[in-house]
């Protein structure tokens, strides 16, 4: 009985609901050939994503089509593209939810194009690197030779947690109207990550980041359009992070900002007992 039901469900999932037209912007990224729009007919089943549609084209219709992908589950952030005039992850976007029989695909705006739907994200990574997106501490001896873990309460985790979900897909940068006009503007992703580390109780890097984050092309150029937060596939709110950075800047300029002292190493838990059956950790292979 159960087998019959699941077989029916599988059959229904395999059923072709409709056929949609993919209109894909094709270009070589070097300006040698003129950009053009190619149309492809793609069969849609229940749950078919735009990424599935692109695979169908690659396997059956045009093997030269280029796009970037890896995980197929909204984790790696590789398959960002402009789908029906909105930056989305191709793997995260089901064709039926677009409610259109014509799917327009373009590479992410605000980035150079390598080929077809492949944007050059190196600008994003360079800007990301500029804000020092890692924990900076003054106690270098502890950082070099850690003696334990840094203490952090649940409340302290909450202060930055949502910003830690960023997968560096670049959708926020593609959606940002300021990035579109000011190529030197840091943009929502790096700024939100700067706030993520500034807000981390284990970090003391505000001073090290301020010259980049609070520069003429830093946080102050955000118009608070909120397009970045709308586009983020992971529910991060970069626009909010930038406003919190501005608040830090405002307090800093007026001399009200009190920089936190980085969290200390948590004392070892003396009362904890090791559960039975848990094997010993393997020996270090690198000293």
């Amino acid at each position: 009985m159960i087998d019959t039901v699941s077989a029916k469900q599988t059959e229904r999932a395999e059923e072709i609901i409709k056929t949609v037209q993919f209109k894909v912007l094709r270009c070589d990224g070097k300006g040698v050939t003129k950009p053009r729009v190619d149309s492809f007919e793609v069969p849609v089943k229940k749950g078919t994503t735009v990424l599935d549609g692109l695979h169908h084209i690659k396997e059956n219709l045009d093997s030269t089509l280029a796009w970037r992908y890896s995980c197929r589950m909204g984790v790696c952030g590789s398959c960002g593209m402009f789908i029906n005039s909105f930056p989305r992850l191709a793997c995260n976007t089901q064709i039926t939810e677009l409610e259109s029989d014509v799917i327009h695909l373009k590479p992410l705006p605000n980035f150079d194009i390598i080929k077809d739907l492949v944007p050059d994200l190196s600008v994003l990574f360079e800007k990301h690197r500029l804000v020092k997106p890692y924990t900076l501490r003054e106690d270098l001896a502890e950082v070099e030779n850690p003696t334990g873990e840094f203490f952090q309460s649940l409340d302290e985790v909450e202060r930055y947690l949502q910003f830690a979900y960023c997968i560096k897909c670049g959708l926020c940068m593609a959606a940002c109207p300021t990035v579109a006009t000011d190529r030197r503007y840091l943009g929502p992703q790096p700024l939100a990550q700067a706030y993520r580390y500034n807000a981390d109780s284990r970090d003391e890097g505000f001073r090290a980041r301020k010259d980049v984050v609070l520069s003429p092309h830093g946080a102050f150029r955000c118009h608070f359009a909120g397009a970045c937060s709308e586009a983020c596939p992971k529910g991060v709110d970069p626009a909010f992070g930038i406003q919190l950075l501005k608040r830090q800047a405002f307090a800093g300029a007026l001399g009200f900002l009190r920089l936190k002292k980085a969290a200390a190493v948590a004392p070892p838990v003396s009362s904890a007992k090791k559960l039975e059956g848990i094997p010993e950790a393997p020996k270090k292979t690198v000293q």
Partner: protein
Amino acid sequence: MRTRESTFWTWHLLAGLVILVVLGIHMFVMHLSKLLGTDIGKGVLDYYTVMWRSTNVSFAVMYVVLLGAALYHGLYGLRTILFELTLSERAEKIISALIVFAGILLFVVGSYGTIAVYLRGTA
């Protein structure tokens, strides 16, 4: 804890607040006088009313403050708009210098007018 830009931007916000207050007073005095029943004499643009305001030290100070705040707020905003055009660093420096020059010049001319009228009226 501050950078040059964070200081400029903070002044921009504070200038906005000052404008809100001073422009509010201006609106009450100049445009809502009939509504509020604060109209003196033959209207706000009557010669004697204008002279009374111009020779009142509070109004003179308010005019200079409004001029300074409006110039700073407006010119910083203009600089921001121009900076968003992806200019070279050199172009940005030239724009900043021109804006500072224009701001100081307009402030000096405007303040001179206000102070000169005040001094002449009270002489």
